[in-house]
């Protein structure tokens, strides 16, 4: 096999000795189906001080690779490699006991879900200090001091008190900082980060990424950064390796890879992520068809060939090796030279409607001043807790929506967007307010709504399992609402089910499959078919694509858009992914602490003037394009609790544009700007626009060159 590292050294592009040198690493698992190679012949080098982004979808083997690098595989896993070196140390020859000395001192790890990776019953400071005691041989007192020092280093406010707290008392962002502090305490040569920001809100993610960038200027630690998020790679990595089904497909400096995309898989990935700086009018998302092959049924030739549009006869015969395309840029595609000249067509064909046509559709939903207050629960935990008031999850939200349009609802987790949707669906009983569907006021609870009204509102959840019975064939799940709500006879039901499966692009024989025989994306399609079976006029989509891989997300976004065009359904699309919301929505509502702060057409909301909170959200989103620079507006801390809502403007505790005491004392007014575009802030809009300049995104190379 071709050896990227060797030639890189000859080129003189990477003269430094790599911190991590992996050559031809293969990881094998013994399974019921015989031995399976989950990772095959992977070679990669990470230089000191470099952030290497390892990108892949679920099932690409990226986490297995990370575990293999530290030789921490499950009992049924084994690895072979020509080289696995950390600096001068050959990791392959070390015993388990010797590896323990490497773990936590020379190689450290930061894990995906910070809430789960911190021990819940040991104060976090102690969890940093124990590393210092074991690896740096510090006395307990010195170790404690070291822990405080590290907490300060990761910009933790008030390290003293944080050190004494437990995991459940800290937010996800703070916990991730604790884990980074732990990982940096021994000044390791290599830090492996496995999806470190995936579980966090964009605003928190942005802060963590900034922190990493800053730390890297002072430390010489190399980082192997594993993620599925191309935007994150574009923002912080210097090199990228794209993994697919256990192998590296393309590798090189981030700018080169993003610009020339010398592998169809990379192209597919980049083409399928919605971008916050472009809407559905600008780009049509191009989904990659099919799925990652299972390790037991890999194709003979190029492993991407079953999904590759450029596949030709020779691709199917032998697996193409990783070859050097351009200096330090490598690709595993035989036809990369042709790719160099192949421009993707990104233009969307056909007319797309926009918010400005809005007056035409019939008014479907009108929700006025919806409030939902929960009483905080008693139980054992009240044994030790202090007083607590009601949790104001939704506190006065109003929304109007017309048929055939999509309203996107965005905000950080815990802002009340899901509760709002559940109130509309009647799954949660609103505390007050009015919900009107086609002008008719609905009761709060789903139990008291009329059959005919129930059918009109359908919901799609993040987890499709919520609406599919695991014991029922997919077709049965889709037929249920038809039988319950419809008064159809058997053959009508059967033909309608077939029609719905066609509509969501699932082969007809999937009707007879059980949920566990379907992939996540397919299950979500069945859930969507089921929702459409009732022929709803309003669809409430609660993070419908968030749990899916990027390549699958795109096809679902497209599917939802198509179905909407056909059925004139109104969508309420809830997501923390602003790019996806931007892509699919005509209207956008920005929610913070149970209330709306900005409403407007997608085009208006994404250009100045926008609400300071919208601005912060936008500037936090990592754009999958290393050439785009973003304004750096960061929010401090996390969303305050919905029990003690700040006075005046609820956003004042974190607002980067706060103008003074008025923000703390008076509720800000709604200001109109243009076509149904409203912003709730004390700053006069012209002034706001002036402050925000030309917006959050600008192309750093040459403006408007290739955006």
């Amino acid at each position, binding site marked *: 096999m071709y050896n990227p590292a060797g030639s890189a050294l000859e080129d003189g592009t990477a003269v430094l000795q790599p911190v991590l040198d992996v050559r031809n690493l293969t990881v094998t698992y013994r399974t019921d189906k015989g031995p399976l190679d989950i990772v095959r012949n992977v070679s990669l080098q990470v230089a000191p001080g470099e952030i290497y982004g390892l990108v892949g979808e679920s099932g690409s083997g990226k986490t297995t690779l990370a575990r293999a690098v*530290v030789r*921490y595989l499950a009992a049924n896993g084994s690895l072979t490699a020509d080289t696995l070196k950390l600096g001068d140390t050959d990791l392959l020859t070390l015993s388990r006991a010797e590896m*323990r*000395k*490497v*773990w*936590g*001192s020379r190689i*450290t*790890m930061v*894990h*995906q*879900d910070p809430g*789960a*990776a*911190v*021990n*819940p*019953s*040991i104060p976090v400071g102690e969890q940093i200090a*124990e*590393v210092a005691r*074991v*690896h740096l041989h510090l006395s307990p007192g010195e170790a404690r001091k070291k822990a405080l020092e590290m907490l300060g280093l990761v910009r933790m406010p008030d390290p003293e008190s944080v050190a004494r707290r*437990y995991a*459940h*008392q800290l937010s996800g962002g703070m916990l991730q900082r604790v*884990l980074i502090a*732990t990982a940096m305490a021994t000044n390791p040569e290599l830090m492996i980060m496995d999806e470190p920001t995936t579980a966090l809100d964009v605003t928190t993610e942005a802060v963590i990424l900034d922190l990493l960038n800053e730390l890297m200027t002072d430390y010489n630690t190399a980082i192997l950064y594993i993620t599925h998020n191309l935007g994150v790679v574009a923002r912080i990595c210097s090199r990228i390796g794209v993994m697919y089904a256990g192998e590296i497909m393309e590798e090189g400096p981030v700018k080169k890879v993003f610009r020339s995309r010398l592998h169809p898989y990379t192209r597919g990935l980049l083409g399928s992520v919605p971008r916050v700086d472009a809407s559905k009018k600008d780009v049509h998302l191009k989904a990659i068809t099919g799925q990652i092959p299972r390790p037991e049924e890999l194709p003979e030739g190029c492993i991407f060939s079953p999904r590759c549009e450029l596949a030709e006869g020779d691709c199917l015969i032998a697996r193409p090796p990783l070859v050097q395309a351009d200096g330090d840029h490598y690709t595993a595609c035989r036809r990369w030279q042709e790719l160099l000249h192949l421009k993707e067509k990104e233009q969307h064909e056909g007319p797309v409607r926009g918010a400005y046509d809005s007056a035409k559709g019939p008014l479907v939903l009108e929700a006025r001043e919806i409030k939902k207050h929960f009483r905080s629960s008693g139980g*054992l*935990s*009240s*044994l*030790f*807790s*202090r007083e607590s008031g009601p949790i104001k999850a939704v506190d006065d939200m109003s929304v109007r929506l017309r048929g055939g349009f999509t309203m996107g609802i965005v905000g950080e987790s815990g802002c009340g967007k899901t509760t709002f949707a559940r109130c509309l669906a009647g799954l949660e009983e609103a505390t007050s307010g009015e919900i009107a569907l086609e002008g008719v006021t609905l009761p709060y609870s789903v139990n008291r709504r009329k059959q005919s009204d129930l059918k009109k509102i359908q919901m799609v959840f993040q987890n499709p399992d919520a609406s599919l019975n695991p014991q029922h064939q997919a077709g049965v799940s889709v037929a249920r609402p038809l039988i319950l709500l419809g008064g159809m006879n058997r053959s009508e039901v059967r033909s309608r089910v077939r029609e719905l499966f066609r509509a969501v692009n699932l082969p007809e024989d999937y009707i007879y499959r059980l949920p566990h025989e379907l992939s996540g994306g397919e299950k979500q399609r069945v859930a969507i078919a089921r929702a459409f079976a009732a022929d709803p006029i309003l669809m409430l989509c609660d993070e419908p694509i968030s749990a899916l891989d990027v390549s699958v997300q795109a096809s679902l976004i497209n599917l939802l858009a198509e179905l909407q065009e056909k059925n004139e359904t109104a969508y309420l699309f809830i997501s923390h992914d602003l790019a996806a919301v931007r892509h699919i929505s005509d209207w956008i509502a920005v929610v913070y602490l149970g209330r709306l702060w900005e409403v407007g057409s997608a085009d208006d909301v994404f250009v100045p003037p926008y609400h300071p909170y919208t601005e912060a959200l936008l500037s936090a989103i990592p754009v999958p394009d290393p050439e785009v620079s973003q304004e750096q507006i960061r929010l401090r801390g996390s969303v305050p609790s919905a029990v003690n809502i700040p006075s005046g403007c609820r956003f004042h505790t974190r607002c980067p544009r706060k103008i003074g005491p008025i923000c703390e004392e008076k509720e800000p007014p709604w200001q109109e700007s243009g076509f149904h575009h409203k912003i709730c802030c004390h700053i006069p809009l012209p002034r706001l626009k002036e402050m925000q300049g030309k917006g959050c995104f600008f192309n750093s190379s040459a403006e408007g060159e290739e955006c």
Partner: protein
Amino acid sequence: MALYLLRRLGFIFLTLLLASIIIFSITQFLPGDVAQMVLGQFATEVAIENLREELGLNLPLHIQYLNWAAGFITGDWGDSLVSRMPVQPMVMQRLGNSAMLAGVAIMIYVPLGIALGVIAALKRDRYPDQAITAVSMAFVGLPEFVTGLLLIAIFAIGLGWLPANSSIDPGSNFVQAFPYLILPAITVSLTGLGYIARMTRSGTIDVLDTDYIRAAELKGLPAAQVLLRHVLRNALLPTVTVVAMGIGWLLGGLIVTETVFGYPGLGRLLVYGIQRRDLPLIQAGSMIVVAVYSLSNLAADIIYGLLNPRIRLGR
């Protein structure tokens, strides 16, 4: 905190109230006339009627109940119908005996159960785990008179190390009683062991499978430190509850073991009372058992809360 405790104590009071009503009603339905039982087959009508009057048995039921309840609260638990002695010292002394036995048993089976549970979890699905599970389940299933008699046969009769009969003198202190406690305590422990081991095993397996334990290992901490500080602290939380729940069982439910060894515990006193229709004794003894159950449950919750920072410190 104080409020919670008050609420819980109030709840326990309600439990006791309800229990007292139930206990009182049941004792009323026990077959046979109390006065008749006390005086025997050949007592005269007049004597029986006099005794009924004396015992207040002719009063309406609710008055009888209130009298009894008021007495119970003020510490006058009545006299035994059989021995004509006050019930309270009798019950309390037996409670003390039971507590001694319970204490020794807990000292044996809790540490052992935890150790076995942890070993089983670490060797999950391998030979040691299967052996531990099989043996401890066998002991849970075996009736106590079987294990008890077996132990007597081996250690008392065969080897002669320990007394076969544990009928200690009333008022013995712990040191005097200790040799007599060992065999019954082991018998009880063999039953309790299985529950503790199983709970610990499943708790430990759950914790071993968490991200934070993987993280602790990858921090390069020594294996013993990972186990003792990171795993057990979380894994033993559910075990605390099982231990505390066991206290009620140890204090009032060891009828078989106490009988096999002739040990004067609370359980046997209750059986004795029931056989003799000794109503004050049954009522007082049952109330004490209910109270012990409720209080050890409360203790379990409080200890659980104290050990679990999530609950101790709130959100």
